[in-house]
C-alpha cells in the first residue's frame, strides 16, 4: 500500500483550540513551544481511508502533515508563506466567541489567496460548551461562508467529538483531488 502525503493547515483566531484539536488527533508532534517561536507547529497523522467507499483510489492511504499556525491576534496575522503548498485548510473558530466565527471569512480569503483550489473545512470548536451548538452555529455563521467550505463540523477537543471525522473528511477530500 502506498501513501501520499499532503499538507493541511489549521488556522483560526487566537485561543479557538487549534492546538488542542490537533493534539487529539495526531500520532506524532513537535513540542508546542515552536508555536511561540516560529509561529508554526507541525504534526503528522496517517489516515486510513483505503477502504472508505468514496475513496477513488483504493489501496492508497494518506499521510497528513498538519501545520498548526499560530493564532491570529489583533497584533499579528497568519504568515501567508506558511499556507503555501497546503492542499487543504481547517478553519477553527470558537462557538463561545462569536467574533471568531464571524472572522472565518477572512481566514478563507487568506487561504484562497495563496491556494485558490484548496479545500476548506470549518471546525466550530468548543461545541461541548454550548447548549445548542447547531443553532448557535447557524445564527453566527454567515451562510455564504458556510457554502465556501466543503464540510463544517461542530467539534470538541475536550470530548473528542467530530475530531477524527473532520480530519478524515479532509483527508478523503484531498485524496479525491489528488
Amino acid at each position, binding site marked *: 500500500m*502506498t501513501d*501520499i*502525503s*499532503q*499538507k493541511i493547515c489549521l488556522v483560526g483566531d487566537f485561543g479557538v483550540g487549534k492546538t488542542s484539536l490537533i493534539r487529539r488527533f495526531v500520532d*506524532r*508532534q*513537535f513540542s508546542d513551544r*515552536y508555536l511561540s517561536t*516560529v*509561529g*508554526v507547529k*507541525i*504534526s*503528522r497523522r496517517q489516515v486510513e481511508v483505503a477502504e472508505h467507499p468514496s475513496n477513488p483510489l483504493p489501496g492508497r492511504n494518506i*499521510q497528513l*502533515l498538519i*501545520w498548526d499556525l499560530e493564532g491570529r491576534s489583533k497584533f499579528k496575522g497568519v*504568515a501567508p*508563506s*506558511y499556507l*503555501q*503548498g*497546503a*492542499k487543504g485548510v481547517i478553519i477553527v473558530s470558537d462557538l463561545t466567541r462569536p467574533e471568531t466565527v464571524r472572522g472565518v471569512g477572512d481566514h478563507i480569503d487568506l487561504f484562497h489567496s495563496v491556494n485558490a483550489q484548496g479545500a476548506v473545512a470549518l471546525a466550530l470548536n468548543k461545541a461541548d460548551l454550548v447548549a445548542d451548538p447547531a443553532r448557535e452555529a447557524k445564527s453566527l455563521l454567515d451562510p455564504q461562508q458556510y457554502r465556501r467550505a466543503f464540510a463544517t463540523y461542530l467539534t470538541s477537543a475536550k470530548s473528542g467529538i467530530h475530531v477524527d471525522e473532520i480530519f478524515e473528511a479532509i483527508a478523503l477530500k484531498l485524496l479525491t483531488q*489528488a
Partner: protein
Amino acid sequence: MATDDQERRGFKGWRSRRQWAIATSAPEQRPETAPQDRPAAAPEETPAAADSAIDEATDAGLQVLQELLLGDRTATIDARLEQLREKQQELEHHYYDPKAVINWLAPLIDRVIHEKIRSSRDEMCQSLTPLIDELIYQRSREDRRAMSRALAEIVPAAIERCIADSPQTIAKALAPEVADAIRLQIELDREAIIDTLAPEMGRSIKRQIELERDSMVDALYPVIGNTIRKYMREVVRTINEKVSTALTAEGIGRKIRARVQGVSEAELILRESIDFEVMAALLIHKSSGLVMVEVQREDGHLLESEMFAGMLTAIGSFVRDCIAEPDAAVSDLNEIEYGESRILVEMTGYCYLATITRGDLPKAAIDQLRRTLQRLVLYYGREMEAFNGDRAALPPIIQQSLQNLVDSCNEMASKAKKPPGPPWLLVALLGGAAAVVMLSTLWGGWQAQRRSALLTAARGALADRPELAIYNLGARFEGGAIAVTGRVPQERLKTLAFDVAAAAIAAADGDRRVVNRIQAVRQPPDPVAAAAEVARLTAIFNEQPGTRIQARYQINPSAADSAAIGVVVLDGQTLQGKDLQTFERAYARIPGVGNLENRLRVVRPGTETRLYFGVGSPQPVAIDTRYKIDPVRRFLVANPAARLRIIGHSPADEPNGGDGLARDRAERVRAALIAEGIAPQRLAASGTSADPPQVSASDPQWTRRCVRFETVPPERPFP
C-alpha cells in the same frame, strides 16, 4: 406603268408590313434567321389554291384603297423603310464585327454596371463573388508585380484591422510560422535580430522573475551555481597562497607532510579539519515542505523526515518573512548549525536539498552535492514541480541519485578519517632534518676553513716570487676548483704565475683542480729598447762569415696596433738562403716590431772571382795565383759547409785549347786549393770550350781563357 408602280408598291407594302409585323410581334426572334426567309417560313401566309383568285382580287382592291387613302405618303414611308433596312443591315454587319461591337458598347458598359450596382447591389455582388478569387488569382499570375503593388497599400492596414478585430485568429494563423520566421531571420541577419531583442532582454527576464520566480531560479540554478563555484575556487586559491606563506612550526610540519604525501597543503588542511558524516539527505518540496525523496543512514537514529522537512520549510519561510529584506528578491536559508551538526540547505526553484551532517562537509562533498542537485533539476525539474505528495510518481532515479550522493560522501569521510601516517614518521623526519642541518653546518665550517687555507697558500706563493710580486695576482674558489687570477704583461709570466700557484695548492691539497684565469696584457713596447735589441741582433748576425747586415729600426706612427708600431728594415747579404728566414724570425720576435722589410740578398762567394790564363797555358797568370787563390781558400774556411765547382774555359779557337786544356786549368786551381788545405771532396773540377757567362767571342780573348767558381749548396751533390 401605273400597274407596275402599284404592283411594285403593293409588293413593297406587303413586304414592309410583313417585316414590320415580324419585327413587332417577335422581338425575341433570333437574328440568325434571315429576313428574306420570313415569307416562306410563315405557313399562314400560303393561300389555298381555291381561294387564290379571291385573294388577288382583294389585294388589288386594297392597293386601290391604299392609293386613295395615303397617296404620296406611301412613297415617303417606303423611303423610310429603305433607310431602316439599311440601318438594320449595318447593325447586323456590326454584330459580326467584334471590334465594332466593342466600340459601340464600350461607352455604355460602365454606365450599365454603375446603374446595375445602384439599382440592385446584392444581385451584383452575388454575380461577381464567385469570380473574385479567380480574378485575383489570374491577375496575379499575369502580372505579379502590378498585383503586389495594388495589394501592398492595403495589406498592412488589413492586418492591423485583423489584429484589432480578431487577435486570436491572426495569432493562430501566424503562430506556426513565427519560429521559422525568426530562425530564417537569424540566418539572414543575426545582428539585426540581436539588436532588436537585446534591449528588451533585461526587462523580459525581470518580468519573468516577477511572474514566476521559481521557474527562473530553476532555469538559472545550474548556471549560477557553476559561476559562483568558479568564483569561490579563485577565492580559495588566494587563501591557499596566503596559507603557503605562513611560516609557523605547525605550518612547516604540514608543509613537509604535504610534500611527502604529494598533495597541496590546502588539501591537507582540509583533510585535517574533516571529520564528518552525512546522516540524511532530504529532497523537499519547497512550498509544501513535503518530502519528495529521502535517504537516511540505517544505522543512525531515524529522522521523522516529514515533520522535519515541514519544520525546516517553516523555519525557512519564517526566516525569509522576518529577516530577509523586502528588496532582496532571492534570499534563502543556507545552513543551520547546532553543535557538531549541520543542516545544509541547497535551494532550487521548486525544491531544496537538506543534508543533515555531523561535522563540516568538505568542499569536494559540497561540490558533489550541488552537482547532483543541478542534474536532478535539469532532468527532472518538471516532475519535481508537479509533485503532489505522491512519492511514487517521481522517477526512481532521483532516489537512487540521492542514495549515491550520501554513500559517496560517507565514503569520502571514511577515507579522510584514516590516519595520514604514523606519528613517529614526522618525528623521524624532523629529527633527520635537524641532524642534517647540524652535520651540514659542521661540514660547511670545516670546508670554509680548508678553502681559506688553500687560498692563502696560493696567494703566498705568488707573492714570494719577485718577478710576480709586483703584479696584482690572487686566487679564488670557482665551485670546487681554485682559479688563479690577475694580470701580467707577458704570456711567460702568466704561465709562470699559474705554475707557482698550482704547485702551492697541490702541496696543500693534491686533488684540488686549479684553473688559470690570469690575463696576459700586451703593454706598449719601448721603442728605445726595441731599437737596442735590433742593433744587438744585427751585431750577432754580422759575426757569421759571409753575412753583412745593416738593420734600421723605424717607428710607423700610422700602425693600427700600438704594440707593433716598429718597422725593421734589413739590408745586406748572406751566404745561404735559409739564413734569411732565421734572421726574419729573430727580428720579428723583438717586442715592438710589427713589420719587417727584408732586402737581404743571398751572395754566393767566389762566383765573381776568375783566374785568367796565357794562350795555351794551363797555369794561371802569376798575379792571379798570388792574390786570387787565397780569398777562395778563406771563403771555404769560413764556410765549412760550402763546396765549390771549379770550371775551366778554353775557347775552341785557342791554339792547343779546347775541353782538355780547359779541364787542365780547373784541375790546376783545384790542386792549388787542396795544397792550401781545402778538403778535396769539397772541390770538383770540370772544363769546357764554351765561353764563360757574360763573355762572348767579341770580348777580349783573354777573358775567354779562365777558371771560375760556383758554390754548390751543401745539400746538393756536385753536378
